[in-house]
């Protein structure tokens, strides 16, 4: 009771259906090309127009190539899906941030940087990483395509109210430990289902100290613990980040909004359905070894031995290690890798590129490594060039590609070949996630950079 989650959720309740879900008002619907076409088709079949077209923003990002975006997309099926979004936006009168324009990028990177995702809002998208926008102090969560259609038709969805959880992380992070490590640590502690049914508020010194980019990374990964969403209560850092952005409130509207945003915090008497406490000093740079994001270890630890795994979970555990080509008890430091991916809605922001550049500066990319550096948006790309990061990474043998989701889920050409190891700053290491047979090791941009220059899994603290 009296949590920030309650405050935002309850304010948006249109009605509660007897013995049923809540009808929740949605302030922003984001759509991308993969999970929207069937919703638009449904709207057409019902003869409906979008109920509040000014609250819907569309972004092609999953299929977009990371090179030659000015030329026609080579894959005809990808091209058709991208063209379908263009046509749907035209037909339904929706704002689209078109491919190969300065407004384009990954929706979860662009929403915050354009000032579209604001404190106190309810935000949904047919994409589980919508939780990213929680970093702005919003209740943001992923939905299915049927639910996308609901929002198009009524600006509402029907939803059971999740339970509330607060995760406090106190203390101070050690050097070379970043938001991605915190998230990977939480996932390995909670497992991929530990927060299912909950909405998480991240709190504590570590979260307050985090940059907005760090908070976006942390909230992005909420779904990987099973959480419906995760957010950080807005503070001065949030307001500073938003101020002056393209769609942010201006003038009198700004003052009014700011006054409201400052009230957005959990009460001192707030009661959470669950509350967990962690200490920053327990968190080291982390990597995953298995095929779900909860299968993680500190970079210098060994993979668990079979006897430490619950009997019922042993079959899944061994299937996972077989897929990865790893053995129980194995140490991964020094293990050769083939690919490095820096990017995705998880780690495709300017701070991630700065961290990567800081490590590769003055060094050379390892010959055995193919590296894809993909900014999360054209705005990030612009910042990269303004700060000279492009020059630093190019001198080290890397190139900056064009923005999009890219190798995070390999819907474009950026696929990791079968059997190859990829150290990736993305969010999922599921079987085949980065291409059929690909083997993904999730990590921070620092570990990705260390792997890119050494050609193997390397602790950035030892460089």
């Amino acid at each position, binding site marked *: 009771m009296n949590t920030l989650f309650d405050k935002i959720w309850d304010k948006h309740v249109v009605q509660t259906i007897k013995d049923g879900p809540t009808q929740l008002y949605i302030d922003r619907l984001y759509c991308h090309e993969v999970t929207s076409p069937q919703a638009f088709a449904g709207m057409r079949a019902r003869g409906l127009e979008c109920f509040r077209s000014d609250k819907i923003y569309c972004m092609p990002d999953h299929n977009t190539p990371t090179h030659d975006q000015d030329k026609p997309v080579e894959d005809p099926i990808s091209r058709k899906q991208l063209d379908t979004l263009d046509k749907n936006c035209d037909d339904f009168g929706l704002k689209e941030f078109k491919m190969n324009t300065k407004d384009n990028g990954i929706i979860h990177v662009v929403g915050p940087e354009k000032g579209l995702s604001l404190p106190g809002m309810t935000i949904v998208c047919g994409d589980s990483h919508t939780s990213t926008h929680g970093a702005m102090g919003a209740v943001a969560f992923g939905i*299915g395509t049927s639910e996308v259609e609901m929002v198009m038709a009524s600006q509402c969805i029907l939803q059971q109210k999740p339970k509330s959880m607060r995760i406090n992380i106190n203390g101070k992070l050690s050097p070379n430990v970043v938001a991605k490590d915190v998230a990977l640590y939480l996932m390995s502690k909670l497992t*991929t289902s530990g927060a299912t049914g909950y909405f998480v508020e991240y709190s504590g010194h570590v979260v307050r100290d985090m940059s907005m980019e760090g908070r976006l990374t942390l909230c992005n990964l909420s779904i990987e613990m099973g959480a419906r969403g995760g957010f950080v209560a807005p503070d001065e850092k949030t307001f500073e980040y938003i101020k002056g952005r393209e769609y942010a409130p201006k003038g009198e509207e700004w003052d009014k909004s700011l006054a409201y945003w400052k009230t957005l915090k959990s009460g001192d008497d707030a009661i959470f359905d669950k509350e967990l406490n962690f200490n920053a000093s327990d968190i080291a740079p982390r990597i995953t070894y298995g095929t*779900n994001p909860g299968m993680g270890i500190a970079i210098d630890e060994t993979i668990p031995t079979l006897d430490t795994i619950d009997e019922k979970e042993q079959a899944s555990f061994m299937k996972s290690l077989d897929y990865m080509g790893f053995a129980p008890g194995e140490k991964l430091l020094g293990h050769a890798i083939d690919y490095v991916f820096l990017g995705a809605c998880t780690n495709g922001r300017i701070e991630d590129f700065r961290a990567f550049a800081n490590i590769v500066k003055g060094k050379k990319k390892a010959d055995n490594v193919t590296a894809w550096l993909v900014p999360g948006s054209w705005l990030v790309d612009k910042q990269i060039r303004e700060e000279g990061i492009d020059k630093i990474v190019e001198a080290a043998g890397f190139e900056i590609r064009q923005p999009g989701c890219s190798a995070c889920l390999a819907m474009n050409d950026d696929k990791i070949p079968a059997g190859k190891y990829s150290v990736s700053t993305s969010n999922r290491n599921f079987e085949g996630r980065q291409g059929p047979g690909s083997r993904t090791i999730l990590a921070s941009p620092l570990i990705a950079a260390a792997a890119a220059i050494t050609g193997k899994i390397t602790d950035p603290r030892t460089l």
Partner: protein
Amino acid sequence: MKQKFNVITSTCIPLPLENVDTDQIIPARFLKATDKEGFGDNLFRDWRYNKDGSIKKDFVLNDPRYSGVILVAGKNFGSGSSREHAAWAIAGYGFRVVISSFFADIHKNNELNNFVLPVVVSEGFLQELFDSINEDNKMEVKVDLPNQVVTNLKTGKSERFEINGYKKHCLMNGLDDVDFLVENRDKVESWENANK
């Protein structure tokens, strides 16, 4: 896909793995379609087929001993991506029910919105169900939505399952949420006026 739901009695297909994510249910490269058709053909694609398109004989969907419209899966089914294509693939293949001890939130909603019933049972009931199927692949399970009871017909054991009354009414009568929401647009306008 709007098949009305009442009582279903069927043999089962067992998938005793935990944390089956939606990337396994339907890999991303099959998400490029702009309609809902044909996803069943690629359900569990990379577990079901080799790279050259030949079938993997040891995967349960390719095992002629098992058939039916009920999928029985390990804990935390449908985790990961929100892709509703996973529910379309499950429905498209012909499944009407998925039984597990735990479902990921978004996928559970996606199943319900496609008239596939996710039935949450206790870990003990699930384990016994796997054991029963293992002993007798022709054993049947009865899923009674009106009474919210699932029964292992081999052991005779039953368990009650939860579903909210609204969604149950929708499933039993072939109704969907968009119709309901459009009928309630006036309430949305009232909310907007009160929250300007």
